[in-house]
């Protein structure tokens, strides 16, 4: 059993280590310009420096808060909206075109409007994050709700479940796998949206760190920013899944997880 765990860990980390080795080699041998691909050591040093000064944690904290707030606003809009649209067909006809339209509009293209409506404070940054993560959650949930088997609907009808019970006992559990995909995607797009969000008048945050480091020509710090985003993305995803696992006893999501 222990041995099995070992090999599993080995397999999991094989590719990252290989990439790291390749990277070290590439910068050691100077296959590419060291300015553009700083050595792992230099990136590590930059990370350490940022960590020591506390700047990294400040950036991380600010961004984390933005991601969390944005993500929960996304959930708060997308989940009720999809249930509403699912149960009230006229809402679907009303909202279809506007939502379809927004689907292909890049959030950062709307920055002028966001500044107009939300100013240059947190609100417009949050709006960017919400716009970036809304559709994965919404469309996946809609997909899950619409692909529910007719059998369960009939059963709910014949058991005289009311709307709330129907949602709780039938609709939501049936749509859950799709919903899970949606929130996983949504959460990643929250992280990804940080760059766009922190283009608007930000003085901290991981997106700001990356943008500012690019402006200042500190590619090593850009790498630090990228790694922090990637790793935090993985961790938050894990935590989220664990949390949902507690809420939903009928499935082992960690095993169920799509991959």
């Amino acid at each position, binding site marked *: 059993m222990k041995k099995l765990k070992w090999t599993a860990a080995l397999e999991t980390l094989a590719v990252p280590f290989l990439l790291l080795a390749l990277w070290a080699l590439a910068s050691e041998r100077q296959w590419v310009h060291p300015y553009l691909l700083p050595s792992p050591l230099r990136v590590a040093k930059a990370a350490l420096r940022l960590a020591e000064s506390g700047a990294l944690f400040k950036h991380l904290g600010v961004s984390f808060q933005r991601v969390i707030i944005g993500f929960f606003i996304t959930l708060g809009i997308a989940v009720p909206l999809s249930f509403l649209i699912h149960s009230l067909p006229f809402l679907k006809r009303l909202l279809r075109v506007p939502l379809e339209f927004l689907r292909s509009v890049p959030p950062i293209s709307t920055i002028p409007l966001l500044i107009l409506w939300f100013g240059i404070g947190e609100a417009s940054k949050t709006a960017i994050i919400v716009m970036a993560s809304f559709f994965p959650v919404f469309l996946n949930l809609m997909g899950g709700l619409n692909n529910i088997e007719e*059998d*369960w609907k*009939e059963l709910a*009808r*014949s*058991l005289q479940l009311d709307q709330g*019970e129907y949602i709780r*006992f039938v609709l939501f559990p049936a749509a*859950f796998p799709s919903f899970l995909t949606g929130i996983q995607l949504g959460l990643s797009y929250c992280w990804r949206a940080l760059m766009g969000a922190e283009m608007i008048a930000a003085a901290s945050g991981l997106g700001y760190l990356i943008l500012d480091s690019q402006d200042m020509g500190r590619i090593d710090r850009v790498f630090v920013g990228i790694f922090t985003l990637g790793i935090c993305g993985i961790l938050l995803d894990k935590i989220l899944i664990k949390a949902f696992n507690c809420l939903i006893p*009928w499935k082992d999501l960690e095993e169920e997880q799509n991959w």
Partner: protein
Amino acid sequence: MVENAPEVIIQDLNRIYKGSDEAVHAVKDISLTLTPGSFTALVGFSGCGKTTLLRMLAGLEEPSSGSISLFPENSYPAVIFQTPRLLPWMTIKKNMNIALRHRVIPRQNKREIKKRVHAALEMVGLNDRADAYPHELSGGMAQRVGLARALCQESGFMLMDEPFSSLDALTRENLQKELKSIWEKKKSTTLFITHDIAEALVLASRILIMKEGSIIADLDRNDWILRNKPEAAIMSLMNNPLIPRMVYATS
């Protein structure tokens, strides 16, 4: 307790499915009255439209034409589907519980719900599996849970679509007895689809024979035609392609 059992009046009922290949006239011009507290069995060849008729009575299928009236109007049937239809994400107990939330008044009465679920599972012999999930049951067990779920609703109107089809002879016999005694106490208006003519004869006081969407015979258990060799008689009725619409019950 006939007060809860509704009268069911079916008039000129038709159901036509527009299938992907051809239209199917599944139920043809059926007019029928189920008296309050009667136990009616419905037999007929596979695909003759029994399930379609039952589903229309359950309000799950819209008639293409014709009408179904219930007196009292607010009667709600307990339904046993032809497949067990247990929600896979809930334990057996939970599957039973949600069926009772609207039946046990006051709703808050958790103890009453628990008692009824227990009793119903006891009856079908599955009390020890109450915490299992549906996929952990055998085919017959799942069917019995479906039966228990319908019975514990204690409705005055029961629609049952081959509830014993996957059960062995003995379990079947026991459950027939249970069902009979429950019906005798409760006197629900019951429509019972079965392929087993002996079962129909044991349980029902009235037997409807359906063929190609129509009711071709409507028999009372005491009809002369069922005096001896009733099974053979019913088989021959089912087989006879010439009978237009024979209503033996009235004769």
